[in-house]
């Protein structure tokens, strides 16, 4: 055929590329028939074949837009249903984490007796990096929720009062979710910054991290942070998606894994950096008390997770 048929092929291909596989054959057949009908109509009106095809495809418009229509995909990143939650969380995170990171880095640099440019530059750099991360990951999280758990325009089931959110109210629980996120981001940031930012330095002037270097050498620290982030993800899922047994069980398992990892680390004395304890001249009892504190907190989390899981399962 002539180049004009290639144009339709390219148009149809561009649409199908954006569609799930099972929809493709049917949509392709129908779309080709529709385009052919539109071309024929124009040919009858007296235009030449190339012009007719060009006009028919132009009328159909951007293939990505048409494909989004077929796949019922949103043409926005974060829709009105989630937008307020998104801005609220983002604002809270930025307002708390960024100044906190800047303050911690500034304080550490100050205690190290850093020069004025570093005293100002390092906290600014850390604040910028933290801010960029917060914006990126929060936006990504909400874009994913928008595309997965958000209430669809065409609900699969009719709405019943049973679908009402659990007490306490959704707003109250959203506040909890924000607090949890803020604490988690703060915690992760501090853990990741800890090897580079410390009040103690060794003979060569390099900082001595407060946490055991063993955690980094073995990669346990990343595993732990991944677990903590996963547990936050489940908190979001619990908030936005319908409660379901697999979701609740997996969420609880992740939390339990977090707690057990922490207990294991504390019991085996793998949390604090011995070099730091020595440099800071801490008495021997301090690491012991920190270890005990971690174990107690972890056991508390374990008990709370299991109790809450049972309570919610009974409530259903």
């Amino acid at each position, binding site marked *: 055929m002539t180049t004009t048929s290639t144009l339709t092929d390219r148009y149809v291909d561009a649409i199908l590329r954006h569609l799930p596989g099972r929809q493709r054959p*049917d*949509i392709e*057949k*129908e*779309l080709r*028939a*529709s385009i*052919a*009908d*539109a071309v024929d*109509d124009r040919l009858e009106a007296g235009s030449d074949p190339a012009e007719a095809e060009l006009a028919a495809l132009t*009328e*159909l*418009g951007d293939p990505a*837009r*048409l494909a989004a*229509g*077929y796949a*019922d995909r949103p043409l926005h990143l974060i829709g009105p249903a989630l937008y307020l939650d998104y801005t609220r969380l983002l604002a809270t995170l930025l307002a708390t984490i960024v100044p906190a990171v800047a303050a911690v880095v500034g304080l550490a640099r100050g205690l190290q007796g850093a020069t004025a440019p570093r005293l100002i530059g390092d906290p600014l750099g850390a604040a910028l990096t933290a801010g960029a991360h917060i914006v990126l990951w929060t936006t990504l999280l909400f874009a994913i929720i928008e595309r997965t758990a958000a209430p669809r325009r*065409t609900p699969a089931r009719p709405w019943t009062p049973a679908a009402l959110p659990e007490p306490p109210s959704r707003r109250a629980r959203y506040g909890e979710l924000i607090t949890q996120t803020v604490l988690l981001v703060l915690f992760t940031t501090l853990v990741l910054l800890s090897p580079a930012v410390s009040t103690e330095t060794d003979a060569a002037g390099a900082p001595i991290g407060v946490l055991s270097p063993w955690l980094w050498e073995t990669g346990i620290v990343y595993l732990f942070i991944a677990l903590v982030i996963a547990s936050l993800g489940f908190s979001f899922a619990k908030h936005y998606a319908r409660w379901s047994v697999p979701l609740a069980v997996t969420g609880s398992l992740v939390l339990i894994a977090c707690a057990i990892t922490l207990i294991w680390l504390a019991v085996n004395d793998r949390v604090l950096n011995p070099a730091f304890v020595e440099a800071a001249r801490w008495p021997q009892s301090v690491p012991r008390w920190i270890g005990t504190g971690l174990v107690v907190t972890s056991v508390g989390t374990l008990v709370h997770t299991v109790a809450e899981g049972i309570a919610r399962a009974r409530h259903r």
Partner: protein
Amino acid sequence: MLDDELLSTHLQELRRGTVVLACLLILKQPNYGYALLDLLGRRGFAVDANTLYPLLRRLEKQELLTSDWNTEESRPRKFYRTSDKGVALADTLSRGWDELDTAFRTLKGES
């Protein structure tokens, strides 16, 4: 005078949703995409092809339309027809439209 952009935005807002009712009513007689597009245009329900084609599939997914491939002619075409559920929805929407019409008339009569 009203500027064109403002006018078209408001007209679009006003017409949103009427295409669904028009489709459900016209498709009591089975028809296929391009012919329906043409018919809607001639009956005063101007709609873009890239709005109509996905809409037909959405209505089919909602079980308001049923479809059949007609392969008797040289070009196979997907024919849509309003289902019983679709007819019921069309009746309800028509009543809604009539009520709105009455409400508007009353409103304009009073002023």
